């Protein structure tokens, strides 16, 4: 399974914080994972949208594998 998490404004817009997604035979990019779960609400998400895979910064074009944790969130504001 692929674990999908979202944070801050992304979580508020989509209305959930964690989902599981069954892997597919064909390789899937982070953008495909988002489309599968966000549907039309994807258009409302903040831009740029940041992506992390297994707790490391990645991009919407990064490949997602079975067992990965993918996270979507707005630009960060630490410190």
């Amino acid at each position, binding site marked *: 399974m692929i674990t999908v*998490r979202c*944070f*801050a*404004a992304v979580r508020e817009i989509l209305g959930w914080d964690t989902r599981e997604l069954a892997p597919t035979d064909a390789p899937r990019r982070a953008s495909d994972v988002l489309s599968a779960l966000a549907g039309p609400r994807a258009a409302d998400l903040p831009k*740029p949208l*940041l992506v*992390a895979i297994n*707790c*490391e*910064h990645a*991009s919407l074009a990064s490949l997602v594998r079975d067992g990965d944790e993918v*996270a979507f*969130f*707005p*630009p*960060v*504001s*630490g*410190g």
Partner: protein
Amino acid sequence: MIIRLQSEDFDPEREAQMLDVKGAGARVSFVGTVRDSARDRTITALEIEHYPQMTRAELARIGAAAQSRHNLQEVLIIHRHGRLACHERIVLVTVWSAHRAEAFAGCQAIVDALKTRAPFWKKEISPEGALWVPGQTPQDLG
């Protein structure tokens, strides 16, 4: 390197003194606090959300990069999350090095990286309502 994520407050001087860094000639600390106004609005509190597993990993990467680039002998990062009232402390970054230039540069590098790489999000609470603070994007991701 010591990294702590916590909801409770900290005492910056006590935290720094608890680390006995032998041979360091310089110690530089940065303390970030909640402002009482932003973008022409009065701020009453800040809600800080984060991605716990990634925050820990990212802070470790940020600290290690600064440690090696600026020759730091020790790094301490404490970052709070949850609801903070204005003027409360948010973050402590303390670094130790042999000389002051490395300590100043290393501390600044960590604080700058926190702004663009560490997965925290702040929501400003004001009498007019709540607003997410516009965040920043890691420079290497465009």
